[in-house]
Structures are given as structure tokens and as C-alpha cells.
């Protein structure tokens, strides 16, 4: 009897490791930036190169920072939802990465522009400070400039309600975040 207990115990331990490990998402890499002050940046605007988009513009309000590019198919996928968020009153700032300016301007003209403004980062230099690995990536920024949440992959209503809304409820009231009523869900 005892003879069988040891192999059984080993099997159970290994099975437990697999049960947990195989359910994990190997693409999920936690960002060390969450909970920290957002990196400062200052980039020329996509639509107006004379104008600078800088991190100072984000101060004092809850906002989103969204990494996008016209080469990014999944960005197109989330675009309609970003427009919906913008319509509800959430300020969204874009970081346009490794893109062609004319293509980016055309994209915004054709599909609509959800961004207050978008910084133009053709060489992907500024986004390194944000720990960006690709697009789309979305950061939720608190009114004090801390990064409250980072989301990799297209934003959807389901993800918004599951991951963003609870944080927003915690960090801002209906007065600061009127868009919560529109997109806060039930």
C-alpha cells in the first residue's frame, strides 16, 4: 500500500502544476510600470507636426493612452470601441508607432479620430519608456498621472467593463468621470 503512495503523490503534485500552468497565458507579461508615474514624453502630433503632444497635457484628468499604427490589424478591430469611449467623454491620447504620417492621417480621416491628439513616433523610441511590445496597447492613467492599468490586445466592451470600470469606480466619481454612466455597464 505504502509502495503506491509515493508515486501517486508525485503524480498528484505534477498534475497540480500542469493544471495551473497550462491555464496561464504565456503572453501575459506583467508590466512593472503599473502603479508608477507615467513616463514623460513630448512628440509631434500626427495631424499637426507643429504641435507637440506631451505627457503634461494628460495631467488632472483620467485618460487613456492608446498605442496604434495603421499597420496594426487589431487596432482597426478596436477602433470603433475607442470612438465610442471618446464619444462618451473619455479623453484618449494616441501614440502612433512605426507608422507613415500620410497613412496615419488618412486612417483618422476615414475611420474617425477618437484621440484628443496622437503623438507621432515613427521609430518606436518614445514607446520604449512605456514598455510597449507592440500594438494595440492601452494604458489607463489616473488624474495624478499614475498608470492604473495596462491592457495588451484590442479593447472591447467586455474587457472595459471587467478590467477598467472597477478601477475607475475606485479612482474617480461621477463628477470627474461622466463617461462611466455611459459605458459603466450594469
Amino acid at each position: 500500500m505504502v509502495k503506491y503512495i509515493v508515486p501517486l503523490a508525485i503524480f498528484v503534485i505534477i498534475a497540480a502544476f500542469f493544471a495551473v500552468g497550462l491555464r496561464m497565458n504565456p503572453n501575459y507579461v506583467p508590466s512593472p510600470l503599473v502603479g508608477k508615474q507615467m513616463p514623460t514624453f513630448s512628440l509631434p502630433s500626427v495631424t499637426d507636426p507643429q504641435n507637440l503632444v506631451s505627457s503634461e497635457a494628460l495631467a488632472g484628468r483620467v485618460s487613456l493612452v492608446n498605442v496604434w499604427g495603421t499597420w496594426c490589424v487589431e487596432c482597426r478591430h478596436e477602433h470603433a470601441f475607442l470612438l465610442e469611449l471618446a464619444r462618451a467623454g473619455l479623453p484618449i491620447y494616441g501614440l502612433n508607432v512605426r507608422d507613415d504620417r500620410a497613412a496615419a492621417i488618412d486612417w483618422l480621416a476615414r475611420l474617425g479620430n477618437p484621440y484628443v491628439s496622437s503623438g507621432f513616433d515613427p521609430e518606436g523610441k518614445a514607446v520604449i519608456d512605456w514598455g510597449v511590445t507592440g500594438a494595440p496597447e492601452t494604458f489607463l492613467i489616473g488624474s495624478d498621472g499614475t498608470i492604473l492599468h495596462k491592457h495588451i490586445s484590442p479593447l472591447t466592451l467586455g474587457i472595459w467593463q471587467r478590467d477598467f470600470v472597477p478601477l475607475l469606480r475606485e479612482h474617480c466619481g461621477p463628477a470627474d468621470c461622466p463617461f462611466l454612466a455611459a459605458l459603466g455597464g450594469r
Partner: protein
Amino acid sequence: MRVLPKLSVVWLAFVVFAWALGAQEGFDDPVLNERYRELIHEIRCPKCLNESIGESKAPVAADLRREVRRLLTEGASDDEVKTYLSSRYGEFVLYSPPLTPTTFVVWAAPFALVALGGLVFWRILAARRNQPLDEEPPP
């Protein structure tokens, strides 16, 4: 049969071209170049799971290699480069993570398993030693 030499010429041209592309990225200074080569193979590409930024063709890996070159040109030490990248991308990007309470298990596990294996081995040996010679088990 005639096709083979032609193919191998194309292949050779391809290899030389790829090698030339890769070589462009290094430093002229051999010491600095060696440090650069070592560093980019110690830093994991944050997008591609099991490749270093030296091996990966992902755009983010190219950006990070460029960032490593910039830091080395500015005179940063190897540790400074690693801290710079891990403060942005997390300890995930370091192939040998520093010893912290969270990574302790990873570092200790191999030693613990070798010790456990040794213990089992020693116990088997001890059990055999006690076996009288004239009472050998049936085959």
C-alpha cells in the same frame, strides 16, 4: 543536377546578405562589440517568449537592440543596460533574473532536486549494501 549549384549560389548570396545585415548593427570597437553581442543574448524579447533580442526578428527586438547600442555608446555598464530595460519591461526580459524572494524558488529548485536525487541514490545504495550475498533475489 545542374540546378543544385545554382541553388547553392543563391543560398550563399542569401547567407552573406543576412550576415552583412546583422554585422551592420555592431560596433567597430571589438571590446564594445563583444559586450553588445553578449548583452543582446542575455536579454529576452518581451514579445516572443523564448528568443533573445539578438535572435528575434520582431520589431520590438530591433528597437531594443538599438536602445542597447545607444546606452553602450553613452558609456552605460552592462548592469545599467539591464536595469534600464527591466524597469520598463519587467524582470521577464532578463534571462538570469536577480535573486529576490519571488525568484528564490527558481534559483533554489535545481540544488534542492539534486540533493533529493542524491538522498534517494544513497538510500538505494545503503539498502543494497545490507543485502546478504547468498540471498540474491530470483531473476
